[in-house]
Each structure stands twice: as structure tokens, then as C-alpha cells.
């Protein structure tokens, strides 16, 4: 499928803008074994990583598209560029960023330095003391935090032990693609017993590669350690590369705790196909806080493999599908040990002809005696043009497991609107308030500045949803 066709699908893409950066390294369009080798060579990778990439590439060619969800046949893999490294002096200029994007940033109240980063104008934040201090604190605690490329060079043994284990390259076509051409992403190791009090945010990771198409994140939370990691940001992210396939792998060891919060808000030309998976040992707890607002087509089902007794998995997610968008998201909880528990809370909103589906799997294996799962899926459909399906799969393979599933699909009721309007709120204020209340179980889990940004963003998305 050509770019033209894609452009047709997405209509007039509001946020597109051109850059004239001179690329230092550019593999050109299309994917081949040579391209994979070239990427590895540019990165000066050890041979085991090159081998991994090559095996993944061969698997990728062989594998079929996923047999569920939206049709992906329109993706023409030869139409994308898989690796570009921009020149150091970034030539994109703030002046070239379109007014409407600047407006959005202003409405969200984003500081100057961040705006430029988000618009792709600068590759990093202006060095601020606070970031340096944070990094210094981490260093003193023995926490390793860098981009994954750097980790391959600096901590080869750790990376080699964990990389591609919880998400093998053969897992699915897009995990294979990512494994072949990955670049960037975060690497975090929290040593035994170290509990990080403050949320660790990805933008502390200065001097690293920019967010990219094929990010690869690897997080290891060792025994009794605790991490609250916030990836990305709620502000819209503009990318001219329209195929994104990230992989996130997380290991939470005995009694460890990890929370991974992210709000995905890619621009509306992006096909975003993400594999996120965590594996929890005994009494470990993994929480995915996952927001999906942007992109044209988004498929993402954060998973927890509860592999040790008493392990716990939680996913709280929202998905917002506006005009021309498909959000096919959900969660997976795989219980493989006794007394494991999981909770899924999913909130979906669609309007303007958007499609939002919940697709989830809860599996209790024969070993998962006394496992318990609770699933809650709520959807609000804001107009007659939009659609939503809830597609849960529950597998119970032992006699002593329990799964609860609750799902609601509703429209905003006339009486609720009347109630709020009778107190002086306009119709759009009333609708906004109902929607904000609906996603509150999600937004209350975000760090405050993110929650505020998210609220602002939903307000912007809601503009024009009436009349």
C-alpha cells in the first residue's frame, strides 16, 4: 500500500510538518538482511546482538500478520525507512513547526524546553540541574538507567541475560520486526531492595536517542526492589514515520514492585503495534497504567505473566478513539502459579466515528490454584457514528480459580446532562465533566502533572463533539 493510500485513510493529517534535517545515517526505504546488518554495524554492536537481529529478521519474513484485530494487510514493509540517525546539529527549526501544534502545546501549558523536544526541534531538553541531580541520586543507589543501545555497550552481561526472553523475537510478527531493527528505548535495572520513592521519568534520560519507531525497553526490578516508571508524556508527539512497533520487557523479581505508566499520544498518521509484557516472580506486583489517545491504528495489550506464587498483576487503561481512529487495546493476565491475583480496569471512549475495542485474555493454568481475577470494562459511546466491542477471553484450567468479569457500554444519558446543565454548566462542559469522571479511575493513577495534561488533552479532543 502506498503513502497515497495511507494519506487517504487518515484524511488531512492535521499535525504533519516537514523537516529538512540532513541525515548522517539513513538505510533507505525497505528492509533486508543487509539493512539489519547495517543497523547493527552503525551501532557497533557485539556479534550476539547482530545474530539476534538476523534471526529475528528471518522469522519476521516468515511470520503471518496477527490472526485477530484490525486488518493490517495495508502495511507495505518496503515503504518504510527502518533506521535514520539525524545529524547532531538538528536543523529543524521552531519557526517551521505549524501554528496549530504550537497552539496545542500552549493549551497544554507545556514549558518552552519541552515543546521543542516534543516538536522534534531539539533532541534533548536543555540541561537542567534537576535532571542531573536525579541521575546522580540514581547512580548512588546503584540503579542503572540509560537508553537500551548504551546498555548493550555498558552492561552486556545483564542485557544478554534478559533481552528477548519475556518477549521472544518469535512472539509475533511485530515483535520480530522490532527485534530485527530496534533502536532506542529505556534500560533500567533496580538492584535488590532498592525502593525508588519518586517516579522515574523517561525524560530524565538525557543525551539519549530520541523516541523512535522501534523502541526497545528492558526493565529489571530485582528482589524486594521497587520502581515507578513513567514513559513518554501526554503531550502529542509528532512523528513522520508512520509505522511504530515497540517492545517492552519487564522482569519483577520476588517481592518486587513495578509500575509502568505511559500515555500514548502519537499523531494521527501512526500505526502503533506494541508488545508489552512483564513476568512476575513470587509475590511480585506489576502494574501497567496505560493510556491510548493518539495514532490512527493502535494495537496494544499489556500482559503480566504471573509466574511465582502470590504474584499480582494490575492493568488500568483508557482508550480514546476519535474520528478515523481505531483503538484495539486491552490486557492479558496469564496465571501460572498458585494464589496469583490480577485486576484489569479498562475505560474506553469513542466519538466522531472512532472505533474502540477491548480485547483481553485471562488465563488460569492448572497450576494456578486459588487464582483470582477481576475484570472491569466500561465504554462510553458519544455519538451514533462510533463503535465499540468488548472481546474478553477467559481460560480456566483448574477447579479452584475465580474470574469476575463486568462490562458496561453506555451513552451519556440525557438525564445526567440535564442534571449538570440545570446547575449552569453548558452542554459541552457537562459532557466533558461526565467523561472526565469516567476516566478518573485512570487519571488518578498518573503523576499529577500528567493527569492535568491528560485532562487538558481530553478536553481538546472533546471540542467539537457537540452539534
Amino acid at each position, binding site marked *: 500500500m502506498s503513502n497515497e493510500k495511507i494519506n487517504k485513510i487518515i484524511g488531512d493529517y492535521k499535525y504533519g510538518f516537514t523537516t529538512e534535517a540532513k541525515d548522517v545515517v539513513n538505510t533507505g526505504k525497505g528492509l533486508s538482511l543487509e539493512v539489519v546488518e547495517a543497523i547493527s554495524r552503525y551501532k557497533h554492536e557485539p556479534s550476539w546482538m547482530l545474530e539476534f537481529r538476523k534471526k529475528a529478521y528471518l522469522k519476521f519474513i516468515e511470520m503471518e500478520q496477527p490472526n485477530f484485530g484490525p486488518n493490517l494487510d495495508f502495511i507495505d514493509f518496503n515503504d518504510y525507512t527502518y533506521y535514520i540517525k539525524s545529524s547532531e546539529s538538528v536543523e529543524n527549526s521552531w519557526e517551521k513547526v505549524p501554528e496549530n501544534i504550537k497552539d496545542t502545546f500552549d493549551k497544554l501549558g507545556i514549558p518552552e524546553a519541552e515543546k521543542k523536544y516534543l516538536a522534534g526541534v531539539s533532541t534533548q531538553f536543555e540541561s537542567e540541574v534537576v535532571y542531573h541531580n536525579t541521575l546522580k541520586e540514581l547512580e548512588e543507589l546503584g540503579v542503572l538507567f540509560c537508553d537500551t543501545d548504551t546498555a548493550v555497550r555498558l552492561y552486556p552481561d545483564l542485557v544478554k541475560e534478559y533481552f528477548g526472553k519475556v518477549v521472544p523475537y518469535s512472539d509475533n510478527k511485530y515483535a520480530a520486526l522490532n527485534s530485527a531493527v530496534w533502536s532506542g528505548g529505556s534500560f533500567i535495572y533496580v538492584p535488590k531492595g532498592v525502593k525508588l520513592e519518586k517516579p522515574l521519568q523517561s525524560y530524565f534520560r538525557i543525551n539519549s536517542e530520541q523516541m523512535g519507531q522501534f523502541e526497545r525497553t528492558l526493565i529489571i526490578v530485582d528482589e524486594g526492589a521497587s520502581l515507578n516508571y513513567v514513559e513518554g508524556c501526554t503531550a502529542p508527539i509528532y512523528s513522520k514515520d508512520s509505522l511504530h512497533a515497540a517492545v517492552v520487557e519487564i522482569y519483577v523479581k520476588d517481592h518486587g514492585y513495578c509500575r509502568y505508566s505511559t500515555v500514548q499520544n502519537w499523531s494521527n498518521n501512526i500505526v502503533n503495534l506494541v508488545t508489552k509484557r512483564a513476568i512476575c516472580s513470587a509475590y511480585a506486583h506489576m502494574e501497567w497504567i496505560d493510556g491510548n489517545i493518539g495514532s490512527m491504528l493502535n494495537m496494544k495489550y499489556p500482559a503480566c505473566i504471573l509466574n511465582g506464587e502470590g504474584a499480582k498483576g494490575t492493568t488500568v487503561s483508557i482508550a480514546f478513539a476519535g474520528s478515523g481512529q481505531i483503538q484495539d487495546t486491552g490486557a492479558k493476565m496469564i496465571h501460572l502459579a498458585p494464589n496469583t491475583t490480577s485486576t484489569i480496569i479498562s475505560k474506553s471512549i469513542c466519538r466522531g466515528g472512532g472505533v474502540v475495542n477491548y480485547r483481553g485474555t485471562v488465563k488460569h493454568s492448572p497450576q494456578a490454584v486459588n487464582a483470582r481475577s477481576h475484570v472491569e470494562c466500561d465504554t462510553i459511546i458519544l455519538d451514533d457514528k462510533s463503535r465499540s466491542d468488548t472481546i474478553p477471553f477467559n481460560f480456566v484450567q483448574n477447579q479452584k480459580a475465580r474470574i469476575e468479569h463486568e462490562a458496561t457500554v453506555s451513552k451519556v444519558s*440525557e438525564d*445526567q446532562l*440535564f442534571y449538570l446543565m*440545570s446547575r449552569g454548566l453548558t452542554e459541552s462542559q457537562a459532557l466533558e465533566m461526565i467523561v472526565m469522571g469516567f476516566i478518573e479511575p485512570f487519571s488518578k493513577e498518573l503523576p499529577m502533572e500528567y493527569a492535568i495534561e491528560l485532562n487538558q488533552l481530553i478536553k481538546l479532543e472533546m471540542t467539537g463533539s457537540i452539534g
Partner: protein
Amino acid sequence: MSKTLEIKDLHVNVEDKEILKGINLTIKTGEVHAIMGPNGTGKSTLASTIMGHFKYQVTKGTMELDGENLLDMTVDERSRKGIFLAMQYPNEISGVTNSDFIKTAMQARLGSDEHISLFKFIKEMDKAVSDLKMRSDLPHRYLNEGFSGGEKKRNEILQMKMLKPNFAILDEIDSGLDVDALRIVGENINNMRGEDFGALVITHYERLLDYIDVDYVHIMMNGQIVRTGGKELIAKIDALGYDWLKEELGLEDEEFDNRQHVVLGSCARNPKTENK
């Protein structure tokens, strides 16, 4: 200066069925009116129509606030003009705290360059909560979610106190309230009465009126106000019910209680009597 809410010859349809058949009613600030009457005579329809509920179609008549046409205004405009409806069945809005909601509603009454002082707001809210003897965590609870029937009703009065309307319509505010709560609600309404505040109290029990000083009592039957008087009417209804009035007016029972009877679903079916 006193304000006037004037309703003339108001006819209202709900789903093409005429419910109100020519209501005439004038209320001034400083006055408290009560509307009484048997079930199903259109009392709540009148309340929702004054507020502008989407479901009710005005087919004839006028409704003016100080000469301004209310019928041309949306629900929220009416609210900002000073009309308030305490609802019979307040909605639950999950995820929205009472204080956020009330603050937003108060802000909606101000110009875009004016802002509510947070300190004043919290003080006022706390006072209203204690006046109504409500739980002190009320501001942080979600709007009516998990509230008992009585709490919901008190919350309506709380909103009224905070928003300070010129005209409050209280639609069966007494249902679900115990005697103590009834007294508290009555006191709070009495305290608001003044040259900027008038109320229309809708009830079909006279109990509430033990606690509220009313100036006028209107009896509604069959979509019309059929009798207007003072407090003495309450005593008469208390003693004799409505039958005497029906007789005087020559109304048949079915004429005013002509709502559809409730049809019980399958669980109440008796298979033996079916298919006959």
C-alpha cells in the same frame, strides 16, 4: 428588588400526550408557594418544564422571568438566570467530586475574568455541609455516588445554598427524608427566604409543610391548578384528602390518575393462567 416568575396558560406534552393543560402561576421572590395534589397530576412535569428538560414539549403558553422569555433559553441559561431545580431523583456522576462540581457550577455564573477564591469556597462549602448536618467528607465524595436517598436530597439543598438562585423549585424533596432530616431541610429553606429568593415546593404529603412557612398553596389535578389558597388548605387536605375537591369539581378518578399501569415482567407470570 423583587423578581417575578410568571407562567401563563402553559400546555406541555410528553411523547405527544398532553400532561399540563393550561397552568397559570405567578411567583415573586420573597414568597414560598406549595403545589400539592395526588400522584400523576403533572406536578413533576411542571417542575422539569420550568427548568427546561429536553423531554417536555411546550405546545402553548408563556413562561417569563422578569419579562424575559424563559422558553427561549437552554437549561443552563435558565440556571444562570437564577432558576434552580432540586430533583426528585438526582443523578449519580462517577469520578466527579461534589466540590469540583459545585465550584464549576459557581464559576459558570461568573465572567471569564472573575475567579472564585478557593479559600472562600472551602469555607462556604464547609459551612453548608455542617448546616445540613452532612458527612464532613462530602466535598470529596463523588457526586451522589453511593449516597442514601436522604443524602441525595440534602445534597440538592446544599447545591441550592451554594448557588443562591432567585427561584428554587423543590420537587418532592421530602421523599426519602426522615423527620430530623425534614426539619433540617425545612430550616435551611426558611433561612434562604428573602427579597432575592422565592420557592416552589412540590409535595404530595403535607408533612414537609410543617417545617416550611408557605404563603400560597396550590392544588393540582388533571394537569391544571384547580384551587389556590393559604395554609388552611393544607389542614383540610390533611384531614379529608382530595376526594372532596374531586367531587366539587366533578372529576372522575380515572381522569387524573390515567398513567399506564405497571405491567409485571415474566417473573411474575403464572403459567397456569397463560395461553387462555
